[in-house]
C-alpha cells in the first residue's frame, strides 16, 4: 500500500501481505478464507476416500485394519466439519451482506475468530497421524465419525484430539451462526423486508437457528465422553449405572439436524441458480421458505431413526419412523418448486446449471433411499450395511457437495471477476456424475447383499461390485482435480472478464455491484423498492 492510500479514508484500505488474511474484519476476505480452507480440506477428505476405495478395490488387506478405521473416521469428520460446513459458511459470509444490502457482517471481529478456529481444529484432528510417526499414541480417532460409546471411551489419544477439535469447531459454528442471525435481523437495507429476503438468506437463517439449538448439547456430550475417558465417570458405561445408548441419543440429536445444517444452505442457493438459467422467477418462494421452517423444526424431533437397531421400545420406533417419513413432505415440496421453476423455461446448460440439475437427480435418489431406511422394520436389514453408505453419500454428496460446486461456479465470476473455463467445467460435471454413480450404485447392491460398512476386508462374492465402485471413485476423485485446475486458472487471472451481471438471467443485489465487488459494498445502504 502506498503513502497516498494510507492517508485516504478506509475505502479500500487493508493491510497487505498475509496479515491482511490473518487480521481481516472484512466479510468478503473471511468468506474467501472459508472457501479456500474448504477446498483444501475437501482434497484432504477426498484423498482419504481414495485410500478407502483402494483398500476395498480387492478383498485383501493393503492398509492395516486399525489404520483403515482411522482413515474412514477422519474422512467423515473432515468432510462434514471441515469441508462442507466451512463451504456453506463461507458462501454465507461472502453473499449475505451483499444480498441484503448490508455494509458488512454485524460482528466482524467475531467473524474472523470463527474462521481462524477452524485450521487449529483441523490440525488437532489429523495431528495424531503425525504423532504416531514419532511413537506417540496409536494414531487418529478410529471409532467412526459417530464416536459411539463404549468404543470411543476405550479409544486412544486420537479420540481426545477429536473431542477438542469438536470444541473448537463448535465455538466456530456458534460464532458464525450468531453472527448470521444478527446480520440478517439487524443489517438489512431499508425496504428489504423478510418477505423479500433472498431465499438463500432464509435458508441460512434457519440453518443458524438449528446450529444454536443442537451444537451446544453435543459439546456437553463430548465433555461427558472426555470425563468417562479420564475422570472415572460412568455416563456411557452400564458398569456404573450409565448407558451407552445415551451417547447415541446425544450424538444423533446433534447428528441428524446436522444433515439439514449441511443441506439447507445449498437447497437455498439452488432456486437462485435454477431461476437464473431457466430465465424465470423462482416458483413458490413462500412455499419454499415454509418448507425450510418445517424441515428445520422436524429435524430435531426425528433423530432416533438412526437408532432402530439400538433397542428402542416399539412405540418409540414407530414414532420415529412416522415422523421421519413426514419430513419427506416438505422435502418433496422443495422438489416440486424446483421443477416448477425450470418448467417451460428457456434453459441453457452452463456448468452451474448442470450441477444444479445433477443436485436434483442425485439428492432425489438420496431422499428416496432414505425413505426406505426410515422404515423401522426394513432398517433391521439395511442398518450399517453399504446400502446406508450409498444412501448418505447420495444425500450428502448429491445434495450439499453438488450444491456447493454449483454455487462455486455460479459465484466464481462474481468473486474473482473472471469467467472460468466452460469446457473444463462441463468436463468436470460429466466426469463427476459418471464417477459418482459408478461409485455408489454398486454400493446399494452390496448393501442389500449384506456387506457391512466399516470393514477393510470382505467376502469374495462382493469383489466385482467393489472393484466397480473403486473405479468409479477414482473417476470421481480425478474429476475434482479438474475443478482445482479450473479454480487455479481463474485465480491466476486467465479467462475473460466477467460483467457485473455475470449471467443473463441473474437477479439480486449481489449482481448490481461490479465483478469483483469493491472491498466494502454498501457503505451507504441501498433502498429496496
Amino acid at each position, binding site marked *: 500500500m502506498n503513502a497516498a492510500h494510507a492517508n485516504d479514508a478506509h475505502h479500500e484500505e487493508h493491510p497487505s501481505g498475509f496479515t491482511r488474511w490473518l487480521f481481516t474484519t472484512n466479510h468478503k476476505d473471511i468468506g474467501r478464507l472459508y472457501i479456500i480452507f474448504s477446498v483444501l480440506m475437501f482434497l484432504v477428505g477426498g484423498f482419504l476416500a481414495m485410500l478407502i476405495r483402494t483398500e476395498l478395490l480387492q478383498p485383501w488387506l493393503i492398509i492395516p485394519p486399525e489404520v483403515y478405521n482411522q482413515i474412514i473416521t477422519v474422512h467423515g469428520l473432515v468432510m462434514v466439519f471441515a469441508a462442507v460446513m466451512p463451504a456453506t459458511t463461507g458462501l454465507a459470509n461472502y453473499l449475505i451482506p451483499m444480498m441484503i444490502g448490508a455494509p458488512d457482517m454485524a460482528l466482524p*471481529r467475531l467473524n474472523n475468530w470463527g474462521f481462524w478456529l477452524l485450521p*487449529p481444529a483441523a490440525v488437532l484432528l489429523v495431528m495424531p497421524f503425525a504423532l504416531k510417526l514419532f511413537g506417540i499414541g496409536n494414531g487418529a480417532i478410529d471409532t467412526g465419525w459417530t464416536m459411539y460409546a463404549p468404543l470411543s471411551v476405550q479409544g486412544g489419544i486420537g479420540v481426545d484430539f477429536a473431542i477438542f477439535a469438536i470444541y473448537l469447531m463448535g465455538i466456530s459454528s456458534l460464532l458464525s451462526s*450468531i453472527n448470521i442471525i444478527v446480520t440478517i435481523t439487524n443489517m438489512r437495507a431499508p425496504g428489504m423486508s423478510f418477505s423479500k429476503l433472498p431465499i438463500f438468506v432464509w435458508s441460512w437463517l434457519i440453518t443458524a437457528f438449528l446450529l444454536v439449538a443442537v451444537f451446544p448439547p453435543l459439546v456437553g456430550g463430548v465433555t461427558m465422553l472426555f470425563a468417562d475417558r479420564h475422570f472415572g465417570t460412568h455416563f456411557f458405561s452400564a458398569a456404573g449405572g450409565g448407558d451407552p445408548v445415551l451417547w447415541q441419543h446425544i450424538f444423533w440429536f446433534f447428528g441428524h439436524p446436522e444433515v439439514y445444517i449441511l443441506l439447507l444452505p445449498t437447497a437455498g442457493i439452488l432456486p437462485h441458480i435454477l431461476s437464473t438459467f431457466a430465465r424465470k422467477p423462482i416458483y413458490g418462494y413462500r412455499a419454499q421458505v415454509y418448507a425450510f421452517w418445517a424441515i428445520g423444526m422436524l429435524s430435531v424431533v426425528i433423530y432416533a431413526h438412526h437408532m432402530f437397531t439400538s433397542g428402542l421400545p416399539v412405540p418409540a420406533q414407530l414414532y420415529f419412523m412416522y415422523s421421519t417419513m413426514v419430513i419427506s413432505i416438505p422435502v418433496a415440496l422443495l422438489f416440486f418448486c424446483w421443477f416448477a421453476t425450470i418448467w417451460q423455461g428457456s434453459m441453457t446448460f452452463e456448468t452451474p446449471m448442470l450441477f444444479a440439475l445433477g443436485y436434483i437427480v442425485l439428492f432425489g435418489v438420496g431422499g428416496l433411499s432414505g425413505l426406505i431406511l426410515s422404515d423401522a422394520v426394513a432398517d433391521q436389514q439395511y442398518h450399517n450395511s453399504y446400502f446406508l453408505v450409498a444412501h448418505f453419500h447420495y444425500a450428502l454428496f448429491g445434495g450439499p457437495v453438488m450444491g456447493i460446486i454449483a454455487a462455486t461456479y455460479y459465484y466464481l465470476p462474481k468473486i474473482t471477476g473472471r469467467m472460468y473455463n466452460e469446457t473444463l467445467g462441463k468436463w468436470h460435471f460429466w466426469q463427476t456424475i459418471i464417477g459418482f454413480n459408478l461409485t455408489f450404485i454398486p454400493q446399494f447392491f452390496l448393501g442389500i447383499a449384506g456387506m457391512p460398512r466399516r470393514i477393510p476386508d470382505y467376502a469374495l462374492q462382493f469383489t466385482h461390485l467393489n472393484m466397480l465402485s473403486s473405479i468409479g471413485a477414482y473417476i470421481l476423485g480425478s474429476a475434482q482435480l479438474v475443478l482445482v485446475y479450473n479454480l487455479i486458472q481463474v485465480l491466476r487471472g486467465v479467462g475473460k472478464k466477467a460483467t457485473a451481471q455475470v449471467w443473463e438471467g441473474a437477479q439480486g443485489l449481489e449482481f448490481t455491484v461490479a465483478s469483483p465487488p469493491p472491498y466494502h459494498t454498501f457503505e451507504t445502504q441501498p433502498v429496496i423498492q
Partner: protein
Amino acid sequence: MSTTTPTKVHYYVPRPSPYPVMLSLALFFVAMGVVLKVNALRAGPWSILLGAALLIYVLFHWFGNVIGESESGVYKSWEDRSFRMGMVWFILSEVAFFAGLFAVLFYERNISVPHLAQVDPGFTLYPGFTAAWPSAGPHGKPFSVVQPWGIPAINTLILLTSGVTVTWAHWGLKTARRSAAIIGLMLTVGLGVVFLGFQAHEFYEAYTRLGLTLSSGVYGATFFLLTGFHGLHVTVGVIMLSVILMRCIKGHFTPDQHFAFEAVSWYWHFVDVVWLLLFVFVYWM
C-alpha cells in the same frame, strides 16, 4: 428496519484486529496441552501454560480495545442493537447447552436406570443396583447425597438476593446514582464469591465425608456435571461482574448507554435461573 427512506448512517466496521487469530492460537495450545496432559505426556502442562498466558493477554487487550471503542462513542444505536441480539443468541445457545445436560439427567432417572434394573429379574449390574434414584454406586460402594435444605438452600437465597442487588445496581445506573450502582455491583460480586465458596465447600464435603465423587456411579457423575458446569458459569459471571464494577468505578457508562452492564446482568439472571432448576431437580426432588 421497515422504513424505505434512504439511510446515511454508517455502521462501525472495526479495523483489522490481531486478537481473534491469537485467541484461536491460544485455544489450540490449551486444547493440545490438555490432551497431552491427560495422556501423561510431558509437554502437556507447558502447552496449557503457554495457551493460558496467551489467552489472558488476548482477553485483556481485545476487551480493552472494545471498551476503548465504546468510550470513544463509535457505537451508536445500530451497533448497540447488534450487540444486544448477539448476547441474546449467545445466552440461547447456553440455554441449549444446559437443556442438553438436564435431558441427560431426566433420561437417566426416568429411562435408562429403571430400564437397566428391569432387564432380567435374575440379573443385577452389581450388588445393590436398583431402579432407585439416586442410584447406588458401582460395585455397591455406598455414598450419601447432599441434603437440599442445608447449604444448597442457602445458596439459592444467595443467588436470588444477588439477582436483586444487580437489578438495584441497574436502577442506580439508569437514574445516575453511581454510588448505588457501585455498591449494588459490589454486593453482587460478593454474593457470587460467597456462593462459590459454599459450592467449593460442598464439593469438598461430598468427596471427603459423603463418598459422593465423580466415579460414584451415574448419580455422582451427573451431579458433578450439572453443578460443576453451573459453578463454572458463576465463576465466569463473577469475573464479568468484577470487570463491570471496575468500569463503573472508573466512571464508564451513562444512564442510557451501558450495554456491557446489561449483557452481564442478563447472563447473571440466566445463571440464576439455571440454579433454581438445579436446586429443584438435582438437590430437592
